[in-house]
C-alpha cells in the first residue's frame, strides 16, 4: 500500500538536485521566511536549499523557535543577573530549562511555557499537549517531573465562546497531568474581554534531580548513536506552531494536515518512566525532547551544542502515516517523542529498557567528527547544513518600538471621580459583588478536576498562596511555587506591571514560609510587528530584569508568545511570572486558613489609596486607567524576610498575601478556607473603603497566637515593617464582621464566592 502511494509523490529534492537547478523558485514566503532571510540561507549554503533544508530553516528561524524579535531584549536577564545567582544556578537560560541548586545535593528545574493558539483551535488537545510539552522539557534535563501548574486567561465568563473554551482547556490540562501522575499545585484563572478570541494557556512543570545528574542536549563523541524513541511520527501539528503547510506539500497530493497535535498522556507517562530508568543507569550522553519543529529542532540543537557533526537516515524514522514526505517528517510536531545520543557500548542496555517499557526506539544515525548535519532519504543526501546556522545563527531583529498613542491618555484618566461606597451597607454590597466576580470567585470548579494528591508529597496546593511539595519523603526539604500575572497593571505600565507580577509571586511563596530562589516567565504579548506592542514587551522585560536583580532572584528560563491578538487588537500585555522557593522543613509551612480562636490578626505593610487597574474599578465600573500600585521591592524583600522568619520561629500560624481585591478579599479567603469567622476593627482614622479594597502591594495578613504577639511585633518594629493589629479570629462568630461597618455570615460569603462558576458551567 505504501508503494503505490509512493509513486504519486513528487521526486524528493536532493542536494545534488539543488546544485543542478539553482534557479528553481522556492515557496519561502509561504513558509514564513522573509526575502533577506532566504538570501541569507543561500549565502550560508552557497546554493539553494533543498526543500527539506528550506523546511528546517523555516521552522528553526520562526519566531517561535528563534526568538528573533525578543532576543535583544531577553539578553538583559543574563546581563542583569543578580549576584546571588552564582551560588545557585547550575544551568542558566538557553537550555531546555534552568537548574538551581536547592541544597542537600538536590537540584530543581522548572519552566513555564505557552500553548495559547492551539488551545483556541482545539481547547482540550491544545491544553493537553501544552502540559505534555513542558513536562518533556523538564524530563530532558534529567529530572523527575514532580508537579505542574497552569496559568489560564479567558474572555468574559459569560461570553458564549468561554463555555466552549474553558471546560475544554480545563479538561485538557487535567486529563493530561492527571494521567501522568503529576499533582497540580496551583495556577491562575483570569477573565478579561481581551482574551476572548485568544485565550492563554501557560503550563509550568517542576522537576527534581540530584545536582550531579544533570543531562544536556548535546551530541558528543563521534560514533555515538542518535536514537529516536517514543511515539511514531505522524502528520500532526504541521503548521501548528510556526508555519502553514505550503503549496509545495499540496503538490504532493495532500489535503491539509491537521493543525493541532493530539496527545497521548499514557505514552508520555511510559516515556517518563523509561527515561528515568535510562538516566539512572547513566546510558545517554545527550538528550533532547521533540517539541516545536520536531526532528528539525532536535537534530540541529543536539548537533549544534556538540563539537562534531551528525548523519541521519531520515527514512528510518518510524511513521504513523506512510505517506509523509521528508519535509513533513522534519516539521511534524507529533507528541511524546525524545532523541538521545548513546555510545555504542551503551546501546544494547538502552534498547533493553525501551523494550521493557514497550517504547519504540530506532537508531536514526550517528555523531560524526565532521561539522555538518547530513540527512539521507533512501541513500540520497537531502540535507547538508552547518547545524549552528539553524540553531544559533538565526536572524535577530531590533523591531521598532513606540509608546502606544493612548498611553498618556490612559494614565491620565485616574478614575478619581468613580463613585465609591460610603456607608456600611454599600461597603457590604461592594464586598459581596467583588467576591462573587469571576476573577475573585472560588476556582474549585476548575481545580477539583486536577489531582493534587498523587505522588504523596503535596504539602500545600490550591487555593493556598503557593503550592508546596516535599522533595522526598525521607527528608523535610520542600519547594514552593507560585505563578502570577496582571494584564491590567501591565497595560497601564508594563515596566511596573512585570515587577508587580514578580512581586506577587515572590510574596506568595514567602507567605508559605519558603525563601524565594529563582524565576521563570512566560511573556504573552500581541504582534512584535506592532511597535506599540513591542514597546510593552521591551518595558516588561526591562522591568522584570531590574526587578529580579533587586530581589536577588535569577531568571532561569522562560518562553515568549507573540501574536496573541484578535484581528489587530492585541491582548492585554500579560507577563506571567513563576517564582520557586525553598523551605528547609516543610512541617513549618504556613497555610492561609484562619484556624485558632483568639489569634490576633495583623496587617503587614502600608495601605495607600491605589485603585488604578484594580478589581474594584474593573468589576464595579468597567474602568481601566491611571497607574498601577506603587512597586517597592525593598519592602517586598523585608516582608518576605519577616514571613519566613516568623514561620521558622513559629510566631504565626497563618499568612495570606494581599493582591487583587485587597484586604477584604484576603480576609474572606482565609475565613472561608478555615471555615471560621473573624472580627475586624478598622484602625483609627482610615478610610474604610481604601482600607478594605485598595490593592497596594507589599502586604500580607498574618494570624499570631497571643503568646507570640510580643516577639512578633518586636521583630517587625526592629526591622521597620509596619504591622497593625486589625482584629481577631472568632470561632463562635461564623461571620466576617467588620465592626462599625458590616457583617457577612460565612454561609452568605461562601454562596457568593462559589456562585459564578457553578452557575455558568454546572
Amino acid at each position: 500500500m505504501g508503494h503505490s502511494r509512493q509513486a504519486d509523490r513528487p521526486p524528493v529534492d536532493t542536494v545534488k538536485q539543488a546544485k543542478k537547478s539553482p534557479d528553481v523558485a522556492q515557496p519561502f514566503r509561504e513558509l514564513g521566511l522573509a526575502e533577506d532571510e532566504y538570501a541569507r540561507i543561500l549565502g550560508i549554503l552557497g546554493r539553494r536549499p533543498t526543500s527539506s533544508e528550506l523546511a528546517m530553516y523555516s521552522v528553526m528561524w520562526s519566531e517561535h523557535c528563534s526568538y528573533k524579535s525578543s532576543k535583544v531584549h531577553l539578553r538583559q536577564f543574563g546581563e542583569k543577573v543578580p549576584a546571588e545567582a552564582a551560588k545557585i544556578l547550575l544551568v542558566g537560560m538557553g537550555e531546555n530549562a534552568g537548574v538551581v541548586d536547592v541544597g542537600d545535593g538536590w537540584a530543581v528545574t522548572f519552566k513555564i511555557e505557552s500553548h495559547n493558539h492551539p488551545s483556541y483551535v482545539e481547547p482540550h488537545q491544545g491544553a493537553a499537549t501544552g502540559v505534555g510539552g513542558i513536562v518533556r522539557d523538564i524530563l530532558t534535563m534529567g529530572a523527575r517531573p514532580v508537579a505542574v501548574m497552569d496559568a489560564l486567561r479567558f474572555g468574559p465568563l459569560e461570553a458564549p465562546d468561554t463555555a466552549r473554551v474553558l471546560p475544554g482547556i480545563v479538561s485538557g490540562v487535567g486529563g493530561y497531568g492527571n494521567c501522568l501522575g503529576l499533582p497540580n499545585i496551583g495556577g491562575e484563572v483570569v477573565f478579561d474581554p481581551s482574551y476572548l478570541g485568544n485565550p492563554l494557556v501557560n503550563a509550568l512543570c517542576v522537576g527534581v534531580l540530584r545536582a550531579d545528574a544533570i543531562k544536556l542536549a548535546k551530541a558528543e563523541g563521534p560514533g555515538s548513536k542518535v536514537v529516536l524513541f517514543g511515539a511514531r511520527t505522524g502528520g500532526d501539528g504541521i503548521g501548528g506552531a510556526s508555519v502553514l503547510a505550503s503549496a509545495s506539500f499540496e503538490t504532493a497530493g495532500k489535503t491539509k494536515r491537521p493543525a493541532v497535535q493530539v496527545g497521548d498522556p499514557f505514552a508520555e507517562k511510559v516515556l517518563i518512566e523509561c527515561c528515568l530508568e535510562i538516566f539512572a543507569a547513566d546510558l545517554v550522553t545527550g538528550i533532547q525532547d521533540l517539541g516545536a519543529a520536531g526532528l528539525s529542532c532536535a537534530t540541529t540543537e543536539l548537533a549544534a551544542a556538540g563539537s562534531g557533526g551528525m548523519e541521519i537516515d531520515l527514512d528510518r524514522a518510524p511513521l504513523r502515516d506512510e505517506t509523509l514526505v521528508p519535509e513533513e517528517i522534519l516539521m511534524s510536531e507529533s507528541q511524546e517523542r525524545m532523541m538521545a545520543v548513546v555510545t555504542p557500548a551503551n546501546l544494547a542496555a538502552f534498547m533493553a529498557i525501551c523494550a521493557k517499557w514497550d517504547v519504540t526506539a530506532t537508531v536514526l544515525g550517528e555523531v560524526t567528527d565532521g561539522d555538518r548535519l547530513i540527512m539521507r532519504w533512501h541513500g540520497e543526501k537531502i540535507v547538508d547544513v552547518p547545524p549552528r546556522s539553524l540553531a544559533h545563527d538565526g536572524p535577530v531583529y531590533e523591531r521598532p518600538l513606540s509608546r502606544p498613542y493612548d498611553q498618556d491618555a490612559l494614565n491620565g484618566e485616574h478614575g478619581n471621580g468613580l463613585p465609591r461606597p460610603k456607608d456600611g451597607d454599600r461597603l457590604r454590597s461592594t464586598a459581596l459583588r467583588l467576591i462573587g466576580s469571576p476573577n475573585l470567585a472560588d476556582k474549585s470548579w476548575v481545580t477539583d478536576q486536577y489531582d493534587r494528591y498523587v505522588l504523596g508529597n503535596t504539602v500545600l496546593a490550591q487555593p493556598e498562596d503557593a503550592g508546596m511539595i516535599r522533595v522526598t519523603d525521607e527528608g523535610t526539604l520542600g519547594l514552593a511555587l507560585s505563578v502570577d500575572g496582571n494584564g491590567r497593571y501591565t497595560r497601564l505600565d508594563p515596566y511596573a506591571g512585570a515587577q508587580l507580577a514578580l512581586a506577587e509571586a515572590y510574596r506568595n511563596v514567602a507567605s508559605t514560609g519558603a525563601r524565594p530562589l529563582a524565576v521563570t516567565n512566560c511573556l504573552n504579548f500581541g504582534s512584535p510587528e506592532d511597535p506599540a506592542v513591542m514597546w510593552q514587551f521591551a518595558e516588561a522585560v526591562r522591568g522584570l530584569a531590574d526587578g529580579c536583580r533587586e530581589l536577588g532572584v535569577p531568571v532561569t528560563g522562560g518562553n515568549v508568545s507573540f501574536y496573541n491578538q484578535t484581528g489587530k487588537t492585541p491582548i492585554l500585555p500579560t507577563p506571567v511570572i513563576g517564582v520557586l522557593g525553598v523551605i528547609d522543613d516543610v512541617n513549618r509551612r504556613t497555610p492561609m486558613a484562619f484556624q485558632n480562636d483568639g489569634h490576633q490578626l495583623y496587617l503587614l505593610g502600608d495601605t495607600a489609596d491605589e485603585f488604578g487597574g484594580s478589581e474594584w474599578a474593573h468589576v464595579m465600573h468597567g474602568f481601566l486607567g491611571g497607574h498601577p500600585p506603587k512597586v517597592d521591592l525593598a519592602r517586598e524583600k523585608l516582608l518576605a524576610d519577616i514571613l519566613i522568619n516568623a514561620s521558622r520561629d513559629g510566631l504565626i500560624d497563618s499568612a495570606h498575601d494581599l493582591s487583587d481585591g485587597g484586604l477584604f478579599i484576603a480576609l474572606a479567603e482565609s475565613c472561608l478556607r478555615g471555615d471560621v469567622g473573624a472580627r475586624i476593627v478598622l484602625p483609627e482614622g482610615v478610610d474604610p473603603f481604601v482600607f478594605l479594597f485598595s490593592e497596594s502591594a507589599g502586604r500580607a495578613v498574618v494570624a499570631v497566637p497571643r503568646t507570640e504577639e510580643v516577639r512578633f511585633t518586636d521583630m517587625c518594629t526592629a526591622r521597620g515593617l509596619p504591622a497593625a493589629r486589625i482584629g481577631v479570629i472568632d470561632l463562635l462568630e461564623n461571620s466576617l464582621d467588620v465592626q462599625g461597618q458590616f457583617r457577612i455570615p460565612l454561609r452568605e460569603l461562601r454562596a457568593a464566592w462559589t456562585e459564578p462558576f457553578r452557575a455558568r458551567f454546572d
Partner: protein
Amino acid sequence: MPRVVVDVVMKPEILDPQGQAILGALGRLGIEGVSAVRQGKHFELEVAEGVSDETITKLADTLLANPVIEEFTIRR
C-alpha cells in the same frame, strides 16, 4: 420510533492511542489475525419521524464530533 446511528472516528492522520493499546492487548490474549484497530464513538439516537438529514448532520457536526480532529458517518 426511527433510530439513527452516528459513528465518530478520529481522522486517519490523527493519532489513535486507544487503538494502539487494544492492538497490544490482543497479542497478550493470544488472538491473531488482527492488524489494525481504531476506536471511535457510537451514538444511537431516537428521532421523531420528520427529523431531516440536515438536522442530524448539524447535530453530528456540532455536538457529537469535533470536526477539527474527527469525522463521522450517519446511518438511518
